[in-house]
């Protein structure tokens, strides 16, 4: 007899119930840039623009770049992703009640539990970069998924480079 049990997340249950049957063919194969390549990019406020952006819209747009990509087995934040950290540092400093969760991810190489450690190290690197810019640590939570949540299939560098990431998610 099979005993079915569901480890149910209230947070994601409704989203997944709707999304679970969707085609998997819509993933992007682009090279990682701060604004693409995520299955659940935080695009709040990044709507179509008519005319010039005001400052608030521009800030929102900057926050839509919420991904930091890493080199293999590294947790160093590369220069091209400092702007992602800067945008969130500015946002969190200006909004002391705002909170973010930073999720750390790895590619599939290395073992699973080691990668949980590496993913946490990456997420903490982003957290440390934010607090170094004056953000209160209480505004930031960190979780590692290791290699368990790939966004790109495939077993080569193009997929691996998209999966080695930390993502900042507004709460």
């Amino acid at each position: 007899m099979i005993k079915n049990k569901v480890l149910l997340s209230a947070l994601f249950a409704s989203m997944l119930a709707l999304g679970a049957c969707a085609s998997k063919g819509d993933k992007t194969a682009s090279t990682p840039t701060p604004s693409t390549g995520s299955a659940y990019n935080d695009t709040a406020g990044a709507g179509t623009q008519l005319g010039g952006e005001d400052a608030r819209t521009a800030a929102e747009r900057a926050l839509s770049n919420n991904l930091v990509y890493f080199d293999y087995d590294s947790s160093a934040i590369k220069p091209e992703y400092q702007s992602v950290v800067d945008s969130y540092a500015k946002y969190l400093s200006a909004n002391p009640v705002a909170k973010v969760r930073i999720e750390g991810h790895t590619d599939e190489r290395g073992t699973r539990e080691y990668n949980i450690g590496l993913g946490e190290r990456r997420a903490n690197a982003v957290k440390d970069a934010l607090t170094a810019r004056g953000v209160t640590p209480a505004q930031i939570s960190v979780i590692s998924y290791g290699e368990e949540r790939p966004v790109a299939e495939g077993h080569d560098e193009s997929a691996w480079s998209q999966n080695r990431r930390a993502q900042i998610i507004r709460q």
Partner: protein
Amino acid sequence: MSIFKRIVAAAALVCGLSSLPAQAQLEITVTGGDVGALPIAIVPFAQPAGLTTDLAQVINNDLQRSGRFRTLAREEMRQRPSEMASFDPAPWKQQGIDNVVIGKAWDDGKGGFVVRFFLVDSLSGKQIIAYDYPIRNVSQARYAAHWIADKIYEQLLGIPGYFNTKIAYVVAKGLGFQRTYQLVIADSDGENPQYPINSRETIMSPSWSPDRKKIALVGYERGRSAIYIYSTETGQVQKLVSEKGINGSPAWSPDGTKMAFVLSFETNPDIYVMDLATKQRKRLTDHYGIDTEPAWSPDGSKIVFTSDRGGKPQIYEMSANGGEPRRLTFQGSQNLRPSYSPDGKSIVFVNTDGGQRVAVQDLTTGVMRVLSSGPLDEGPSFAPGGAVIIYSSQGPKGRQLETVSIDGRVRLTMRQAGGDVQEPAWSPLMK
């Protein structure tokens, strides 16, 4: 509040979780010579039409993939006796087959069957062992065959067979936050998979209790991980520990009284041991590197683990009470996820030179042997008895389970219908 809620109907309604994999497809590859493998023939059993399981084939596969036997192909059998009265030792002797298994089964008139087998020495023509094994219905037939394989293995090798055991593993499907996870418990040959836990968030690192009544595993819920204990008897799931940060790598002590695991809430990933009766825990490592993937020595005195304290992940060993770790691996840029052989004389782990491959190292000589071909093999551990190692490899349709005999000669692939099959954990022997 228990997060593993009993939602039987809901699970069936979510299309991503309702399509269970079909039964495993077994593919056995034998390479190289067979020095030390015992020649044996498993003659097809005379069975009634209602008993649809090919008993001899199940026994044959069990014995062959252990690497300890060389089985005779059916087309090379010149006779197919099913009783001692019709057994002629001469043709088997000519073919160099020292041991022959013959048998038959019949209806018991109550919906069940009786399976009878003889293990025969073809030199003397005499039976070595013979048993009748009654089964209640056809679904028990594979267990009868595994039981027979265990009897033959033990009789001829002098160590207990391990075929009437279970394998727990994780199946993951989908990408990103649409990825779903199942804990699967199957027979030792991958058949009869059961799916006791389904999750929309990550589950990983299943670990059997020594009495095979419980499985510890890591689960995530709402952005937090925890170590849970699933009871295979009651189906209940209990949370053991959930600190901020990482809760990972649960490993039962050999006597079942303690559990080693990894927590990061104090600083970063370090190894802890909890007394399961008192829930008291002790921190065994305190280092700024990642310390993870602990495994106990069979006598419970030592713990082997992965650490990147030297820069890259390598394997270290320490006393189960803590103390200064000693580095064990020096060959290759990375070595990870170690566990001991049942005799405690060697460890199996992942070596990353030339791809990610399964390697075994003799703890006395320090000699390392690579047993698999990669490129993305992971999660190796010894089967009970130590004859084979199980691990997960990247196959054409996703991750799949493989076993390899410790001489590297016999490899078995268990293919599933879809998804990534990962993190196999072989149950202990039934005591």
